Protein backbone atom coordinates (compact mmCIF):
# COMPACT_ATOMS: atom_id res chain seq x y z
CA UNK A 1 0.00 0.00 0.00
CA UNK A 2 1.42 3.34 -0.99
CA UNK A 3 1.77 6.17 1.48
CA UNK A 4 -0.80 8.29 -0.39
CA UNK A 5 -3.44 5.58 0.07
CA UNK A 6 -2.67 5.43 3.78
CA UNK A 7 -3.15 9.19 4.05
CA UNK A 8 -6.51 8.96 2.34
CA UNK A 9 -7.81 6.64 5.03
CA UNK A 10 -10.14 8.61 7.35
CA UNK A 11 -8.74 6.87 10.44
CA UNK A 12 -5.25 8.04 9.50
CA UNK A 13 -6.30 11.68 9.23
CA UNK A 14 -8.09 11.52 12.59
CA UNK A 15 -5.11 9.83 14.26
CA UNK A 16 -2.63 12.24 12.69
CA UNK A 17 -4.74 15.24 13.80
CA UNK A 18 -4.94 13.94 17.38
CA UNK A 19 -1.16 13.42 17.32
CA UNK A 20 -0.35 16.94 16.11
CA UNK A 21 -2.84 18.35 18.66
CA UNK A 22 -1.16 16.39 21.47
CA UNK A 23 2.20 17.75 20.35
CA UNK A 24 0.75 21.27 20.27
CA UNK A 25 -0.60 21.03 23.83
CA UNK A 26 2.76 19.77 25.11
CA UNK A 27 4.56 22.71 23.46
CA UNK A 28 1.89 25.11 24.75
CA UNK A 29 2.40 23.88 28.30
CA UNK A 30 6.12 24.57 28.01
CA UNK A 31 5.88 27.87 26.08
CA UNK A 32 2.60 29.64 26.89
CA UNK A 33 2.74 32.08 23.98
CA UNK A 34 2.60 29.36 21.31
CA UNK A 35 -1.05 29.05 20.18
CA UNK A 36 -1.94 25.31 20.03
CA UNK A 37 -4.16 25.75 16.97
CA UNK A 38 -1.22 26.97 14.86
CA UNK A 39 1.14 24.18 15.94
CA UNK A 40 -1.56 21.56 15.39
CA UNK A 41 -2.37 22.74 11.86
CA UNK A 42 1.07 23.39 10.36
CA UNK A 43 2.31 19.74 10.22
CA UNK A 44 -0.98 18.69 8.58
CA UNK A 45 -0.76 21.44 5.96
CA UNK A 46 2.90 20.57 5.34
CA UNK A 47 2.10 16.87 4.92
CA UNK A 48 -0.74 17.58 2.48
CA UNK A 49 1.49 19.87 0.39
CA UNK A 50 4.35 17.39 0.54
CA UNK A 51 2.39 14.41 -0.79
CA UNK A 52 0.18 16.61 -3.01
CA UNK A 53 -3.07 15.38 -1.51
CA UNK A 54 -6.07 17.72 -1.80
CA UNK A 55 -7.70 19.03 1.39
CA UNK A 56 -10.91 17.08 0.66
CA UNK A 57 -9.06 13.76 1.02
CA UNK A 58 -7.81 14.73 4.48
CA UNK A 59 -11.19 16.16 5.43
CA UNK A 60 -13.09 12.89 5.02
CA UNK A 61 -11.65 11.92 8.38
CA UNK A 62 -11.45 15.53 9.55
CA UNK A 63 -15.21 15.87 9.08
CA UNK A 64 -15.80 13.52 11.99
CA UNK A 65 -13.89 15.81 14.37
CA UNK A 66 -15.76 18.83 12.97
CA UNK A 67 -19.07 17.06 13.62
CA UNK A 68 -18.14 16.67 17.29
CA UNK A 69 -18.28 20.48 17.60
CA UNK A 70 -22.07 20.01 17.77
CA UNK A 71 -22.06 18.01 21.02
CA UNK A 72 -19.30 20.36 22.28
CA UNK A 73 -21.67 23.31 21.79
CA UNK A 74 -24.34 21.51 23.79
CA UNK A 75 -21.73 20.95 26.53
CA UNK A 76 -21.49 24.75 26.99
CA UNK A 77 -24.73 24.47 28.94
CA UNK A 78 -22.70 22.93 31.79
CA UNK A 79 -20.65 26.08 32.72
CA UNK A 80 -23.75 28.18 32.07
CA UNK A 81 -25.80 26.10 34.50
CA UNK A 82 -23.07 25.72 37.10
CA UNK A 83 -22.16 29.41 37.25
CA UNK A 84 -25.75 30.57 36.74
CA UNK A 85 -26.59 29.34 40.24
CA UNK A 86 -23.72 31.30 41.83
CA UNK A 87 -24.40 34.47 39.81
CA UNK A 88 -28.17 34.47 40.34
CA UNK A 89 -28.41 38.01 41.73
CA UNK A 90 -26.51 39.75 38.92
CA UNK A 91 -27.86 37.52 36.14
CA UNK A 92 -30.45 39.93 34.61
CA UNK A 93 -27.93 42.77 34.35
CA UNK A 94 -25.22 40.39 33.09
CA UNK A 95 -27.58 39.12 30.38
CA UNK A 96 -28.36 42.70 29.37
CA UNK A 97 -24.73 43.81 29.05
CA UNK A 98 -23.70 40.63 27.19
CA UNK A 99 -26.60 41.23 24.79
CA UNK A 100 -25.47 44.85 24.28
CA UNK A 101 -21.88 43.68 23.71
CA UNK A 102 -23.03 41.09 21.17
CA UNK A 103 -25.09 43.64 19.21
CA UNK A 104 -22.19 46.11 19.14
CA UNK A 105 -19.72 43.37 18.17
CA UNK A 106 -21.79 42.07 15.28
CA UNK A 107 -22.61 45.51 13.85
CA UNK A 108 -19.12 47.00 14.17
CA UNK A 109 -17.49 43.89 12.63
CA UNK A 110 -19.89 43.75 9.68
CA UNK A 111 -19.93 47.52 9.08
CA UNK A 112 -16.13 47.91 9.18
CA UNK A 113 -15.62 45.12 6.64
CA UNK A 114 -18.45 46.47 4.46
CA UNK A 115 -17.15 50.05 4.53
CA UNK A 116 -13.72 48.80 3.45
CA UNK A 117 -15.27 47.20 0.41
CA UNK A 118 -15.25 43.52 1.34
CA UNK A 119 -17.64 41.34 -0.70
CA UNK A 120 -20.84 40.19 1.06
CA UNK A 121 -19.69 36.64 1.97
CA UNK A 122 -16.61 38.12 3.68
CA UNK A 123 -18.76 40.71 5.52
CA UNK A 124 -21.04 37.92 6.75
CA UNK A 125 -18.01 35.90 7.87
CA UNK A 126 -16.86 38.71 10.17
CA UNK A 127 -20.20 39.09 11.99
CA UNK A 128 -19.98 36.10 14.39
CA UNK A 129 -16.27 36.55 15.15
CA UNK A 130 -16.63 37.16 18.93
CA UNK A 131 -18.35 33.89 19.85
CA UNK A 132 -17.00 30.42 20.48
CA UNK A 133 -15.93 28.54 17.33
CA UNK A 134 -18.69 25.92 16.97
CA UNK A 135 -21.44 28.54 17.29
CA UNK A 136 -19.57 31.02 15.09
CA UNK A 137 -19.30 28.40 12.34
CA UNK A 138 -23.00 27.60 12.48
CA UNK A 139 -23.95 31.30 12.46
CA UNK A 140 -21.55 31.90 9.56
CA UNK A 141 -23.17 29.08 7.56
CA UNK A 142 -26.64 30.50 8.31
CA UNK A 143 -25.51 33.88 6.96
CA UNK A 144 -23.87 32.28 3.88
CA UNK A 145 -20.38 33.38 4.93
CA UNK A 146 -17.08 31.51 4.51
CA UNK A 147 -16.48 29.31 7.61
CA UNK A 148 -12.67 29.32 7.28
CA UNK A 149 -12.54 33.13 7.48
CA UNK A 150 -14.79 33.07 10.53
CA UNK A 151 -12.56 30.48 12.21
CA UNK A 152 -9.44 32.56 11.60
CA UNK A 153 -11.19 35.66 13.00
CA UNK A 154 -12.55 33.80 16.03
CA UNK A 155 -9.10 32.51 16.91
CA UNK A 156 -7.55 35.98 16.46
CA UNK A 157 -10.33 37.63 18.50
CA UNK A 158 -9.58 35.14 21.26
CA UNK A 159 -5.85 35.82 21.20
CA UNK A 160 -6.40 39.63 21.07
CA UNK A 161 -8.81 39.57 24.03
CA UNK A 162 -6.58 37.24 26.03
CA UNK A 163 -3.48 39.40 25.51
CA UNK A 164 -4.81 43.00 25.49
CA UNK A 165 -8.33 42.73 26.94
CA UNK A 166 -7.61 43.20 30.63
CA UNK A 167 -5.04 46.04 30.13
CA UNK A 168 -7.51 47.87 27.85
CA UNK A 169 -10.30 47.49 30.41
CA UNK A 170 -8.00 48.78 33.19
CA UNK A 171 -7.24 51.80 31.01
CA UNK A 172 -10.99 52.44 30.71
CA UNK A 173 -11.32 52.24 34.49
CA UNK A 174 -13.06 48.84 34.58
CA UNK A 175 -11.75 46.98 37.65
CA UNK A 176 -14.74 45.03 38.94
CA UNK A 177 -14.31 41.25 38.55
CA UNK A 178 -17.73 40.57 37.04
CA UNK A 179 -17.46 43.43 34.52
CA UNK A 180 -14.03 42.19 33.40
CA UNK A 181 -15.29 38.60 33.11
CA UNK A 182 -18.35 39.65 31.11
CA UNK A 183 -16.28 41.77 28.71
CA UNK A 184 -13.65 39.07 28.09
CA UNK A 185 -16.21 36.26 27.69
CA UNK A 186 -18.32 38.32 25.27
CA UNK A 187 -15.38 39.49 23.15
CA UNK A 188 -13.01 36.54 23.20
CA UNK A 189 -14.91 33.37 24.20
CA UNK A 190 -12.96 30.34 25.50
CA UNK A 191 -9.47 31.60 24.71
CA UNK A 192 -10.08 34.77 26.73
CA UNK A 193 -11.80 32.84 29.51
CA UNK A 194 -8.84 30.48 29.81
CA UNK A 195 -6.52 33.47 30.27
CA UNK A 196 -8.56 34.65 33.29
CA UNK A 197 -8.46 31.34 35.15
CA UNK A 198 -5.12 32.17 36.77
CA UNK A 199 -6.29 35.71 37.73
CA UNK A 200 -9.55 35.27 39.58
CA UNK A 201 -12.15 32.54 39.93
CA UNK A 202 -14.98 35.09 39.78
CA UNK A 203 -13.69 36.61 36.52
CA UNK A 204 -13.37 33.16 34.92
CA UNK A 205 -16.84 32.04 36.07
CA UNK A 206 -18.55 35.17 34.73
CA UNK A 207 -16.48 34.90 31.56
CA UNK A 208 -17.55 31.33 30.78
CA UNK A 209 -21.18 32.24 31.50
CA UNK A 210 -20.86 35.29 29.23
CA UNK A 211 -19.24 33.27 26.45
CA UNK A 212 -22.13 30.78 26.37
CA UNK A 213 -24.73 33.56 26.62
CA UNK A 214 -23.04 35.59 23.87
CA UNK A 215 -23.16 32.48 21.64
CA UNK A 216 -26.90 32.09 22.20
CA UNK A 217 -27.64 35.82 21.75
CA UNK A 218 -25.50 36.04 18.60
CA UNK A 219 -27.32 33.14 16.94
CA UNK A 220 -30.71 34.64 17.85
CA UNK A 221 -29.62 38.05 16.49
CA UNK A 222 -28.26 36.41 13.31
CA UNK A 223 -31.63 34.70 12.80
CA UNK A 224 -33.27 38.15 13.04
CA UNK A 225 -30.72 39.61 10.62
CA UNK A 226 -31.45 36.81 8.17
CA UNK A 227 -35.18 37.55 8.29
CA UNK A 228 -34.44 41.24 7.77
CA UNK A 229 -32.17 40.60 4.75
CA UNK A 230 -34.69 38.43 2.96
Amino acid sequence: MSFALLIRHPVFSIAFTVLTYALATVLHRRWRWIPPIVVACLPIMALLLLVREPYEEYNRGGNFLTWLLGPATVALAVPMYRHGVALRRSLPVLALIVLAGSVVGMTTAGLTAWLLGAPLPVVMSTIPKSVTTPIAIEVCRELKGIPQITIALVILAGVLGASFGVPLLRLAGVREDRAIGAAIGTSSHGVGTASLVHHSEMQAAVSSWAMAAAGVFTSLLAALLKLFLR
Partner: protein
Amino acid sequence: MIKSLSIQLVNSLIGLAILIAFFLLGSWLHRLGVPIPGGVLGLILFFLALQVGIVKLGWVERMAGLLLRHMVLLFVPLTVGLMELGALLSKQALAITASLVVSSVAVLLTTGLLGKWLLPAHPAAANAETKASQ
Protein backbone atom coordinates in the same frame (compact mmCIF):
# COMPACT_ATOMS: atom_id res chain seq x y z
CA MET B 1 -8.61 -0.31 39.43
CA ILE B 2 -9.81 -1.81 36.16
CA LYS B 3 -13.34 -1.83 37.51
CA SER B 4 -13.27 1.86 38.43
CA LEU B 5 -11.71 2.68 35.06
CA SER B 6 -14.49 0.89 33.22
CA ILE B 7 -17.12 2.66 35.34
CA GLN B 8 -15.51 5.98 34.39
CA LEU B 9 -15.51 4.97 30.74
CA VAL B 10 -19.19 3.97 30.84
CA ASN B 11 -19.99 7.29 32.61
CA SER B 12 -18.19 9.24 29.89
CA LEU B 13 -19.97 7.35 27.13
CA ILE B 14 -23.36 7.96 28.76
CA GLY B 15 -22.45 11.66 28.96
CA LEU B 16 -21.45 11.69 25.29
CA ALA B 17 -24.66 9.92 24.30
CA ILE B 18 -26.74 12.53 26.17
CA LEU B 19 -24.86 15.43 24.54
CA ILE B 20 -25.22 13.87 21.08
CA ALA B 21 -28.93 13.23 21.69
CA PHE B 22 -29.52 16.92 22.51
CA PHE B 23 -27.44 17.96 19.49
CA LEU B 24 -29.49 15.70 17.19
CA LEU B 25 -32.73 16.96 18.74
CA GLY B 26 -31.60 20.56 18.12
CA SER B 27 -30.54 19.78 14.53
CA TRP B 28 -33.87 18.10 13.88
CA LEU B 29 -35.82 21.13 15.17
CA HIS B 30 -33.55 23.35 13.04
CA ARG B 31 -34.40 21.30 9.97
CA LEU B 32 -38.10 21.65 10.82
CA GLY B 33 -37.64 25.40 10.41
CA VAL B 34 -36.48 26.91 13.73
CA PRO B 35 -34.05 29.63 12.56
CA ILE B 36 -31.40 28.96 15.24
CA PRO B 37 -28.38 26.66 14.64
CA GLY B 38 -28.91 23.07 15.78
CA GLY B 39 -26.04 23.09 18.26
CA VAL B 40 -27.36 26.24 19.96
CA LEU B 41 -30.90 24.82 20.11
CA GLY B 42 -29.39 21.72 21.69
CA LEU B 43 -27.54 23.94 24.18
CA ILE B 44 -30.73 25.81 25.15
CA LEU B 45 -32.78 22.60 25.53
CA PHE B 46 -29.99 20.93 27.49
CA PHE B 47 -29.71 23.97 29.77
CA LEU B 48 -33.46 23.81 30.42
CA ALA B 49 -33.21 20.05 31.07
CA LEU B 50 -30.51 20.74 33.69
CA GLN B 51 -32.60 23.52 35.29
CA VAL B 52 -35.72 21.37 35.48
CA GLY B 53 -33.69 18.40 36.71
CA ILE B 54 -34.51 15.90 33.94
CA VAL B 55 -30.74 15.54 33.43
CA LYS B 56 -28.37 15.51 36.41
CA LEU B 57 -25.11 17.43 36.13
CA GLY B 58 -23.15 14.36 37.29
CA TRP B 59 -24.22 12.32 34.25
CA VAL B 60 -22.53 14.64 31.76
CA GLU B 61 -19.94 16.59 33.76
CA ARG B 62 -16.94 14.43 32.81
CA MET B 63 -17.63 14.28 29.07
CA ALA B 64 -18.66 17.95 28.88
CA GLY B 65 -15.41 18.95 30.59
CA LEU B 66 -13.41 16.79 28.19
CA LEU B 67 -15.06 18.26 25.08
CA LEU B 68 -14.73 21.86 26.31
CA ARG B 69 -11.08 21.41 27.35
CA HIS B 70 -10.08 19.92 24.02
CA MET B 71 -12.30 21.97 21.73
CA VAL B 72 -9.21 23.20 19.86
CA LEU B 73 -8.69 19.67 18.50
CA LEU B 74 -12.18 19.77 16.99
CA PHE B 75 -11.54 22.83 14.89
CA VAL B 76 -8.17 21.76 13.53
CA PRO B 77 -9.62 20.19 10.33
CA LEU B 78 -11.57 23.36 9.46
CA THR B 79 -8.55 25.55 10.14
CA VAL B 80 -6.38 23.36 7.87
CA GLY B 81 -8.92 24.34 5.18
CA LEU B 82 -7.52 27.89 5.38
CA MET B 83 -4.72 26.73 3.08
CA GLU B 84 -7.21 26.70 0.22
CA LEU B 85 -8.30 30.29 0.90
CA GLY B 86 -4.90 31.98 0.77
CA ALA B 87 -5.69 34.13 -2.29
CA LEU B 88 -9.04 35.43 -0.96
CA LEU B 89 -7.59 36.08 2.49
CA SER B 90 -4.64 38.12 1.24
CA LYS B 91 -6.90 40.18 -1.04
CA GLN B 92 -9.26 41.01 1.86
CA ALA B 93 -6.59 41.23 4.54
CA LEU B 94 -7.16 44.94 5.32
CA ALA B 95 -10.95 44.70 5.64
CA ILE B 96 -10.72 41.55 7.75
CA THR B 97 -8.01 42.84 10.09
CA ALA B 98 -9.68 46.23 10.57
CA SER B 99 -13.03 44.58 11.28
CA LEU B 100 -11.37 42.29 13.83
CA VAL B 101 -9.60 45.05 15.76
CA VAL B 102 -12.39 47.68 15.68
CA SER B 103 -15.05 45.18 16.71
CA SER B 104 -12.97 43.53 19.46
CA VAL B 105 -12.24 46.89 21.10
CA ALA B 106 -15.89 47.93 20.74
CA VAL B 107 -17.19 44.76 22.41
CA LEU B 108 -14.67 44.94 25.27
CA LEU B 109 -15.47 48.58 26.05
CA THR B 110 -19.27 48.29 25.67
CA THR B 111 -19.55 45.22 27.89
CA GLY B 112 -16.92 46.31 30.40
CA LEU B 113 -18.17 49.88 30.87
CA LEU B 114 -21.84 48.87 31.01
CA GLY B 115 -20.85 46.25 33.58
CA LYS B 116 -19.00 48.87 35.62
CA TRP B 117 -22.03 51.20 35.65
CA LEU B 118 -24.92 48.72 35.88
CA LEU B 119 -23.90 45.66 37.88
CA PRO B 120 -25.41 45.56 41.39
CA ALA B 121 -22.79 45.57 44.12
CA HIS B 122 -21.50 42.09 44.81
CA PRO B 123 -22.52 40.64 48.21
CA ALA B 124 -18.88 39.98 49.17
CA ALA B 125 -17.82 43.45 48.00
CA ALA B 126 -20.78 45.06 49.81
CA ASN B 127 -19.85 43.25 53.04
CA ALA B 128 -16.28 44.47 52.72
CA GLU B 129 -17.56 48.02 52.26
CA THR B 130 -19.80 47.93 55.35
CA LYS B 131 -16.95 46.44 57.37
CA ALA B 132 -14.61 49.17 56.18
CA SER B 133 -17.10 51.89 57.10
CA GLN B 134 -17.70 50.58 60.61
